[in-house]
């Protein structure tokens, strides 16, 4: 994400084109995740170690690449776009339909991912590879290919998220500008019990808390922003414990083969 943010920003600075900025962010995310995929899928390295390595190295790399542009205003950034008609619906319009383009991309992507996973052959195969790669392999699903695909897709999205930060959310680049959002995304997935649709809802909830923490004093809410900031983490913790305790793991749990490298026998 950080790598995506800085690459996006750099590319815009170089080219002045937002489209290329977004493309660069996505490409950077792809590159980082390709490394992750190579190590975890091909070399069977531990995913936690590799993921953490990517995070730490990515932080360093982003700082290195972005050292000359810290604090510079961008040559271009995304403007908010009111969706015609929808944007003028009183109440809802402002909230849902008056954002920069990338927000809409997020709105559309989450249900799209859900639909693909649930209703297409591609989705069936992705889920099978996550649940029981040996079964998928025996049925001729190319496990390695799908795992690379999934990791790369994730990397591209993270890169996109980074670009949306540096090009739209708070245009510009500073070290550590993602402020741990990649980690909270992890919490979000568990909070949403592995459903892309619930992820979108959860993101609203977490985002709302974020904004509330920021504006608490302005609105006159007498809660320390730091305490509000804890809520997403504590809530996720509770969800995790409850899901485990209820024994509903089979319906709501993580894919069975999460984190397990697949080694074919023989």
């Amino acid at each position, binding site marked *: 994400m950080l790598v995506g943010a800085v690459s996006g920003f750099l590319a815009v600075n170089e080219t002045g084109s937002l489209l290329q900025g977004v493309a660069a962010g996505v490409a950077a995310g792809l590159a980082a995740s390709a490394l992750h995929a190579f190590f975890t899928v091909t070399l069977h390295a531990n995913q936690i170690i590799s993921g953490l390595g990517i995070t730490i190295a990515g932080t360093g790399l982003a700082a290195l690449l972005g050292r000359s542009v810290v604090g510079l205003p961008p040559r271009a950034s995304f403007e908010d776009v009111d969706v015609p008609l929808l944007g003028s619906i009183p109440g809802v319009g402002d909230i849902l339909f008056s954002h920069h383009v990338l927000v809409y991309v997020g709105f559309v992507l989450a249900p799209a991912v859900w639909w693909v996973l649930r209703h297409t052959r591609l989705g069936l195969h992705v889920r099978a590879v996550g649940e029981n790669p040996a*079964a998928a392999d025996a*049925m001729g699903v190319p496990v390695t290919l799908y795992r690379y695909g999934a990791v790369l897709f994730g990397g591209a999205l993270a890169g996109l998220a980074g670009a949306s930060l540096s090009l739209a959310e708070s245009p510009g680049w500073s070290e550590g500008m993602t402020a741990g959002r990649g980690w909270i995304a992890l919490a979000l997935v568990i909070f949403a019990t592995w459903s892309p649709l619930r992820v979108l809802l959860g993101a609203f909830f977490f985002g709302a808390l974020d904004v509330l923490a920021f504006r608490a004093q302005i609105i006159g809410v007498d809660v320390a922003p730091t305490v509000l900031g804890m809520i997403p983490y504590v809530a996720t913790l509770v969800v995790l414990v409850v899901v485990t305790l209820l024994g509903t793991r089979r319906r709501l749990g993580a894919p069975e083969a999460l984190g397990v490298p697949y080694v074919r026998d023989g």
Partner: protein
Amino acid sequence: MDGAPVSAEQPLVALRGIVKEFSGVRANDGVDFELRAGEVHALLGENGAGKTTLMNVLAGLARPDAGTVEIRGDDTAVRSPRAAIDRGIGMVHQHFRLVDRFTVAENVTLGWHAPKALLRRRPLEREIARLSELYRMPVQAGRPVWQLSVGEQQRVEILKNLYRGAQVLILDEPTAVLTPQESLALVDSLRRMAAEGRGIVFISHKLDEVMAVADRITVLRRGRNVATVATSDTTQGELARMMIGHDLPQAAAPDDRQAGAGVLRLDAVEADDDRGLPALRGVDLEVRAGEIVGLAGVAGNGQLALAEVVVGLRPLSGGRVLFEDRDVSGWSIARRIGAGIGYCPEDRLRHGVAPTLSIAENLIAKSYRRRPVSGRLLLDRRGARRAAAELAERFDIRGADLDAPVASLSGGNVQKVLLAREISADPRLLIAAQSTRGLDVHAAEATRRLLLEQRNAGRAVLLISEDLDELVRMSDRIAVIYEGRIMGTFPAHEADEEEIGLLMAGRRP
């Protein structure tokens, strides 16, 4: 044989001179195999004879080091399971390759490259219903696999292959998980498939079922062909000789001593399995000193749960476990071990030993709390070593560097490490689960002899096995378990295979 067309000109499948090595050991050493359309062809051999390896080569799961695979005259190498499926080869493994959380329909269509990118559940479920009707293999297409019985899961595996038009169906020990009655139904389904011109490979080490199902039989021994014969031209005795290569040593016949006092008593015991479904539904069972009680049953009927509640690995949801007249239901595992309950679990490398720790460390894994292995606070290294060396000597654990990881030992020696550890603790009750599974003939006999010695020394032994012959040979009494209930208990010398078979299937004769 009901007149299935046996074409002599071109076999469906021909494997020639297959060689496959695993870390220096030749699992297949120049094996030939031929399958014709319309036949059920049994692949017979002991564990380790190379049957599964050979079929993994055909199914694209293992690549041969030498030899050719010819499918309908085409000898292009089968590089992947997918390539095998595309060429009409389907395999049902011993351990099913099903995605638990998927429905039957989703499992059936998984990996199938139909022209449509969208999943359309309706037509899929109709097709599954048609196939299951045609071959008399009832399944419910919409249910998730984890809710199905083992027999149903096997049917899903078979349907999966039929759905993608398999002309060759390989079944690896398919009856190991079935009741005799379910096995009969399976054989009937397979005959129907063969009658349509498919070729069926039936891997087994059971003589009687091979005689019942197969048209032809190929016998393998230590990775080589022994013979291929027509079923009508051979006898069980001849097959046994071909399979083993020599006569079996007989276990000591049970003598007529009287069993002593009751050591273990289960009193209306109930327990749940890992999924929270009932695994034991009111089990009553007694094991006395100086007797072996054999627990017979089809895999997955509560045997494992029964062993686990006695050892303390699984909590009770009802009833009591009495050990030497004391209620041990609430005791910790360690306390039960201390009281004299020994356990050789079924999955040796997973539950029995820690594979990466050394032989010595595994040998002392239960005695580490006591002298001479333990000092007051720290372990006594020298004492531990001496204790381990003595055990290795006494139990004849051969070729062992005590500091080498247990995983470097053969299956038979791992079993010895486990038995040595359990027996040296001087238990008054020993539970042995599937103790000879996967061992070669000699290691299996050595294991049986050790268990008989324990009985003769006055210990109570609970023997859990899926091998009926073994149970009848070893036990003093046999108890049959079905769906978590004891269906009947009777002296082993009164055992009647058919009666046991019916009890195993849940029917009281």
